[in-house]
């Protein structure tokens, strides 16, 4: 069974159609990359998949491990194992990273009928994860994303992903704003989470990232549709040629 199956998905925002019949299938343990010009609908896809309000799905379906998730609340999808690393993470003053993550993990456990985590053990694990991601442990005591630099925010997203152990992680431009060293650490962090049970959808503008996080499939998204799919070499081809050719395909 697929991890994620998107069939002919159409969605609009404020009456404007953004996703125009999109098809995509991700198997368990696979990493897929989506590349595409600004405004082509990549973040929209990520939001529609994770249940952000404000979008109207006008056609198609989304099956996550065989279950139709389109009618579910965002928290229900999270409990099933979906995760989105935001392109623009949100600041929550006064709520520490540790408190926030405990709340999140326990909410998910509760929804699954599991018992609460051991707080001490959880904090210990968080600290270790920080080390691996080259994140200062101070960050755990700071308010979520508040006053974090752009790069810190992106690393914090990967830390959250590690703590929540999702089955499907969608990373929306997690590489943008990272310096070269950070890109390497974050990619290592992501790679460590790769497993036969976990799939990933990586949205990026830069082929460089895909040297570190080597994808099983690469898709080109233009004007709300996947117009071309291939292996990692497609990303190299895009780097050379740009999107012009694919844009024509989409228009045709």
């Amino acid at each position, binding site marked *: 069974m697929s991890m994620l199956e998107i069939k002919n998905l159409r969605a609009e925002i404020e009456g404007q159609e953004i996703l125009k019949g999109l098809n995509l299938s991700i198997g368990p343990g696979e990493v897929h990359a989506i590349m595409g010009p600004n405004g082509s609908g990549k973040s929209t896809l990520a939001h529609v998949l994770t249940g952000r309000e404000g979008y109207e799905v006008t056609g198609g379906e989304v099956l996550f491990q065989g279950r139709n998730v389109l009618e579910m609340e965002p928290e229900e999808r999270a409990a099933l194992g979906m*995760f989105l690393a935001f392109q623009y993470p949100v600041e929550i003053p006064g709520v520490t990273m540790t408190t926030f993550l405990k709340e*999140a993990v326990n909410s998910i456990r509760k929804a699954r009928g599991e018992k609460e985590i051991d707080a001490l053990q959880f904090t210990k694990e968080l600290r270790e994860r920080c080390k691996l991601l080259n994140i200062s442990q101070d960050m755990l005591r700071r308010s979520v994303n508040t006053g974090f630099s752009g790069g810190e925010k992106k690393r914090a997203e990967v830390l959250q992903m590690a703590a*929540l152990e999702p089955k499907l992680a969608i990373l929306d431009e997690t590489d943008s704003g990272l310096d070269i060293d950070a890109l390497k650490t974050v990619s290592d962090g992501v790679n460590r989470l790769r497993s036969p049970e976990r799939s990933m959808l990586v949205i990026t503008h830069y082929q460089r990232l895909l040297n570190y996080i080597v994808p099983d499939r690469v898709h080109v998204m233009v004007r709300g549709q996947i117009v071309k799919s291939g292996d990692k070499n497609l990303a190299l081809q895009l780097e050379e040629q740009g999107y012009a050719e694919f844009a024509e395909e989409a228009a045709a």
Partner: protein
Amino acid sequence: MASESALEPFTEQYEALTGAGTLPGDALPWLKRLREEGIQRFGELGIPTPKVEVWKYTNLRALERTAFQPAAGGTATPSLDTVPSLIGEQAGHRIVFVNGRLHADLSRLDRLPDGARLTSFAKALDEDPGLLSDHVGRIAEGHDDQAMYHLNSALMQDGLVLHVRGGVKVEEPIEVVSVAAADGEPLSWHPRHLIVLDPDSEATLVENHVSLGGGATFANAVTEITVGAGARLHHYKLQDEATTAFHIHTLHGRVGENAFYDGFGLTVGGKLTRNDLHLRLEGSFSDARLNGAYLQRGKQHCDNTTLIEHCVPDTTCREVYKGALEGKGRAVFQGKLHVHPDAQRTDGHQLSQALLLSEEAEIDAKPELEIYADDVKCSHGSTAGELEKTALFYLRSRGIPYPVARRIMVESFLGGVVEEITTESLRTAFMERITNWLSQASD
């Protein structure tokens, strides 16, 4: 102009109580005069209606319609087992008032340092009438138009008196528990509080207003405060009365040279709460922080009306009021910064922010600057809006269900003002009250 029927219960009370000679301090001419002036002015002004500018958004009709009886003294001491303390059962000092009257058996006053006196208004009239005649009615002078203040002056019987002598620092917080207790008929009382901090002294006073019993109550309090040169007063308040309680509080404070008034009030309870707060920054380099937070639901109504006067050069104030409203909860914020002609280099900032969690919730915010000096730095602002959608989605995308996400966001929003409370344990106590309120089912 005042309708006779509305005034009657209170003027009758006054006549009955003076006739029976039961109002304390009958033999003190200054107090007698204050009472007489009070009842006369109240009679002229009447209970405020929305036609009075500063009462435009708060309607006392429901209060007028309730037949309040004066709360009697000598009532049995209630159990406070259900009343959580803000400072903890062991720490600090505590003074307890039930329906406006001191209950010494519930109080804990034995650990106050030398030079700090904490007693009741009625006792202080016997023990230290000079302190009262020097300050009571004097600090508030010049506010002839405040009907509820005058009603209090006419009918006041008891209250809190705190006097800290020069240089004395009261290290531990003082908790003032005010219990509104009514089981049957509606009861009213008019507590009068006096806080005098002599030069270079310091104290932390935290008011805890609660209800016992389900009857209607009306507390019409007045607090007069003087913060002497170089002194520091941390003055915090929790209004957690039942939704059958009317609560009107008029405060007049004077802040001396280099002195600091640090105020914070959280309103979660009450049917109708009105805080009328007036500070005069009278000494140069005096500083005021006047913060507040409110959470109201159902048909609760909370009004914070403040006036900060900058009377001399080089004074500063920071004022931030934040709240969240659900159901038909209503809030009013009227804040005025008044800069007198001589008050050059005034630095005054004021902000009101409200979160509307339901369609029917309503905030009326009116920040105002009145500036007569030319070299000042002043600002004011007000915002009202819903919960930020992106943030809400962010939390929910992490698996946090909507009601919890909402609680976390409101806590985060209000946390900024609670953060400014000087004592850490009190910050925690106030945050707990906020969390409790948010964890209760919404209507």
